[in-house]
C-alpha cells in the first residue's frame, strides 16, 4: 500500500544521486568495532581511485580510534559481498554505487 493522501502524492527523493553531481554517498563500516558507534558516510567522486578514497576518507575517519593503522583493514566487502579493490581502480570501476556499504574487519 502507499500513502493515503488528499491528492496525488508523489515527490522526488531528497537524496537521489543527481543531487550529488559527479559524486555519490558511500558508507564505510568497521566490522566488530563498536568503539566506532556507526558506519561513516562520505561524499566521494565516482572517479576517485580506491587508493585516494582509502587514504583520504577511510583512514582519516578510522584513525579516530587510536588503535587503527592504515594497513590493518582486511576482508573488505562491498554491499555484503567479498571485494578486492586495487589501488588505481575508481569507485565506479569497482561497482561502488550511490549509498553502497563498504566494510572491513580491523
Amino acid at each position, binding site marked *: 500500500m502507499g500513502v493515503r493522501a488528499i491528492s496525488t502524492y508523489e515527490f522526488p527523493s531528497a537524496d*537521489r544521486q543527481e543531487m*550529488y553531481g559527479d559524486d555519490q554517498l558511500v*558508507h564505510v563500516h568497521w566490522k566488530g568495532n563498536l568503539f566506532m558507534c556507526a558506519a561513516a558516510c562520505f561524499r566521494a567522486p565516482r572517479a576517485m581511485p580506491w587508493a585516494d578514497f582509502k587514504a583520504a576518507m577511510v583512514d582519516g*575517519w578510522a584513525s579516530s580510534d587510536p588503535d587503527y593503522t592504515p594497513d590493518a583493514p582486511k576482508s573488505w566487502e562491498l554491499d555484503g559481498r567479498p571485494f578486492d579493490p586495487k589501488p588505481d581502480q575508481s569507485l565506479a570501476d569497482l561497482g561502488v554505487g550511490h549509498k553502497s556499504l563498504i566494510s572491513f574487519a580491523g
Partner: protein
Amino acid sequence: MSKLSMKDRYGLLTRDLDWSPTYVDPKDVYPYTTFEGIKIHDWDAWEDPFRLTVDSYFKYQAEKDRRLYAVLDSYAQSQGHLGLSDARYLNAMKLFLQGVTPLEYQAHRHFAFLSRYLDGPGPRFAALCQSQDELRHTQTETHTLSLYNKFYGGFHSFSKMHDRVWYLSVPKSFFDDAVSAGPFEFLTSISFSFEYLLTNLLFVPFMSGASFNGDLPTMTFGFSAQSDESRHMTLGLESVKFILEQDEGNVPIVQDWIDKWFWRSYRVTGLVAAMMDYMLPKPVMSWKEAFKLYFEDQMLDGLFPDLAYYGIRPPRHVADAIAEKDVLSHQVYWTLYSFSFAAGFTTTIPEKENLDWLSAQYPDTFERYFRGNWEKAQRIRDAGGRFFFQGLPQLCQTCQIPMLFTEPGDPTRIAFRRSEYKGESFDFCSDGCKWIFDREPEKYVQAWLPVHQIFQGNCGGPSVPEVLAWYGLQEGDAGEYEGSLDQVSWADWHAKGGE
C-alpha cells in the same frame, strides 16, 4: 433558581453551541475526515471524560500558572541554580528544551487544526483544550528553563537548533510525520502511541530527574503539567476506542498505525534512555527498569489485554524493543559522546560511581560490551586527547538516528537493513524502521537527513565550524563537559561560595 448540573452546564457550553451546516455541504466544511478510510457513523458517541468548559479550563490553568511562576521567581532571586547536583545535570534539560519543547508547540498547532476540522463538537472541544495545554506547556517550559539561560550554554536558540541540528532531526521528523498524516492517524500517533503508551517513558523521566538533581523549577513545571498529561493520556485512549467502536473496518487501519507509531515513538525514546542512564549525576532509575515497569507491565500486560476486545494486538516489532532494553541507552549515549563536538550540550565520561551503578543495573551487558569503551576513552583523555568520531555517520532513513543499533540478541553486530525504491537504495537501523518505510516509501524518500544535507551543501558550508555556526551553536555549547564554560563557571561559583 437552581444551579445547573456539571453535565448540563458542559452540554450547554460545548455541544449545544454546535450547529449543522445547511447551505454548505458538510464534506466541504470537514474535508479531511474521510480520505484515511476511517468510517465514523456517530460523532455524538464521543464521550468527553472530563467535561471541561472554557471558563473552568482557564480558571484552573491560571491558578496552576500562578503557583509555577511564584516558584520561578523565588528560585531566581535565591540563586537556586547553585543548588543543583552538578552543572552537567543541565545537559538533560538542554536536550529537553531543544528536543521536546518544540514538539509541544507543534502539538499545539495540530490540535488547533483538529479543533476546527473534526466533525463532532465533542472531539473538537477536547482538541481545543489540548491545543491550549500544549501552548501553555511550550511557554512554561521556555520560561522555566530560561532561568538557566542566563548562566549556562546550550539554552539559547533552541528552536533554531530543533530545526537544524542532527540529533534533533529525530524528534522533529517524528512530529513532521505525524502532522502531515490525516487527523485520525495523528490522534493514533500523538494522542495514543506518544501520549498514552509512552508518556511515562518520555515526559516523566525528565521531571523525576529534575526532582532528584535539585531542579525545583522543572519539577514544579512537571507537577503543573501532570494533570494535563493525564487528561491527554485519557484523550488518547478515548479517541482510539471511539474510532475502533465506530466501524469494524477501522480496526486493521488503526492496528497498522499502532504498529507504525509504537516503533516511531519508541525510537525517539532512545534519546530519553541515554538521558536517564548517563546525563543525570544522580540517576532516578535505569532505562531498563523504567521500560519494564511503564511499558511491559503497564502497557503490554495492562492495556493490550483490554484492547484485544476490539481486535487490537500488541504492536509489531515490540519484541525487538524488549530485547533492546539492555543495550539501548549505552549505544545511544556512546554515540552522543562520539559526536558531541556538534551538539547543543556537552558529554563526558561518567564518574566511577555512575559506571559502577550502570554495571549493577545492567549486569548482563554493561561490563561485557560497554564499559571497555569508557575505559578506552579515559585512556585517550589521560594522554591529553578526547575521542570524537571524525566524520559523519550513516543515518536511518526512517528514524534518522545514526545506524548504531545492533542485531536483536547480538550487541556486537550493527544491524543493517535496506530497501530499493525506484532504483535507489535506502538504509534502515531495524526491521521496524524498514517496515515503516516499505508501507509508505513516497513519504520517507523526502526525509531531510542531516548528514546528507551537509553533503549537499545546505548547512552553512562543508567544514565543521561552518555547520556549527549554521546550527546556531556558540562557544561553550558543545563538546566535552570537563573544561567547558559551564564546568569552569560552576567550579568558580562554588569556590567563591566556599571562601
